């Protein structure tokens, strides 16, 4: 069996792809509802970047798995228990502050992850990562600018941004969980053990939160389960909407 056909690598690619597919879909829910036209377009751009990355990652997952599933089959014909995204990606979009804080937390994580994955021993994954790094850099810049604007803005915007930080913080720990899959791909040089990204993530995120006059909540309990297919109730609802066209008209093209 070639090294890239390890089942752990397929699971790993599903994690990478599902994070971006689910978050991209959540962001796309803003389309037509953004606070102003410019930001509506900006959010849709980020959503398209994430869905584009997910397409490439799920395609690679399907090829590596060699079970005849392409990226569309993986996106539209898996149920929520088969999804491997972190829970933070699937939470409902909330208000604009919630969406921005979540995007900021994920984008910093994604940039660190993709920077490391540029050195993957799998050339295709390294190539996808190189493309994603450019996109993630802009996502960090855009969301960080908004976190500072909202946090260091009016009383109302500060309160909403702080509420979002408080609500989302307990979902950040899952991004850095390590398990047999993370260790397997890391030791094979295919992937990066997510736990190694925690320290730089905290440094960068806490720096921006300070500038935004937002407070880092005291760490208590961290939510988990998404990496093993144990999701919140929200993912099922989201998937039913995302998948209904593909499932109602299997094989349809346009």
């Amino acid at each position, binding site marked *: 069996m070639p090294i890239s056909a390890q089942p752990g690598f397929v699971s790993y690619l599903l994690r990478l792809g599902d994070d971006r597919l689910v978050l991209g879909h959540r962001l796309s829910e803003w389309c037509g509802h953004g606070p102003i036209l*410019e930001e509506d377009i*900006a959010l849709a751009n980020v959503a398209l970047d994430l869905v584009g990355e997910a397409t490439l990652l799920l395609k690679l997952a399907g090829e590596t798995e060699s079970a005849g599933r392409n990226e569309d089959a993986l996106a539209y014909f898996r149920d929520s228990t088969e999804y491997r995204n972190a829970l933070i990606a699937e939470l409902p979009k909330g208000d604009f502050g919630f969406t921005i804080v979540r995007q900021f937390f994920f984008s910093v994580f994604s940039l660190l992850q993709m920077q490391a994955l540029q050195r993957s021993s799998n050339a295709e994954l390294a190539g996808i990562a190189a493309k994603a790094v450019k996109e993630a850099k*802009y996502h960090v810049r*855009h969301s960080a*600018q908004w976190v500072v*604007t909202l946090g260091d803005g009016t009383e109302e915007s500060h309160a909403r941004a702080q509420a979002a930080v408080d609500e989302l913080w307990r979902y950040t720990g899952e991004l850095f969980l390590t398990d047999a899959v993370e260790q397997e791909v890391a030791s094979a040089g295919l992937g990066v053990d997510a736990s190694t990204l925690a320290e730089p993530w905290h440094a960068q995120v806490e720096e921006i939160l300070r500038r935004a006059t937002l407070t880092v909540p005291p760490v208590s309990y961290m939510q988990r389960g998404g990496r093993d297919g144990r999701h919140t109730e929200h993912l099922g609802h989201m998937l039913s909407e995302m998948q209904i066209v593909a499932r109602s008209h299997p094989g349809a093209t346009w």
Partner: protein
Amino acid sequence: MPDQPTSPTNGTDATSPADSQWPLWEVFLQPPKGEAHEHAGSVHAVSAEQALQNARDVYARRGEAVSIWVVPSASITASTPDDMGPFFDPGNDKPYRHPQFYKVPRGVRVF
């Protein structure tokens, strides 16, 4: 009009109560490197950095530009339609201002 100071915000005062939008910025894109920046349109933003990002997202997301300038619309002083006559008409009856009596030497590229 009485002696009203020509405030730079005249005409484009985005903070007036009638306008609930954020301040307006004019966007200039440089198509390929070396060419002049051209006016592309305008965006709303609360800061220069946000204006730059909005300009990127609205006007340059399909690789249209290699450089972006954003300028607060309020900083632009523009001629008015009333200026049309005094500004532009006097040139028309002075043909000697147009160098069209000269023969272009061979070898000079005519644009």
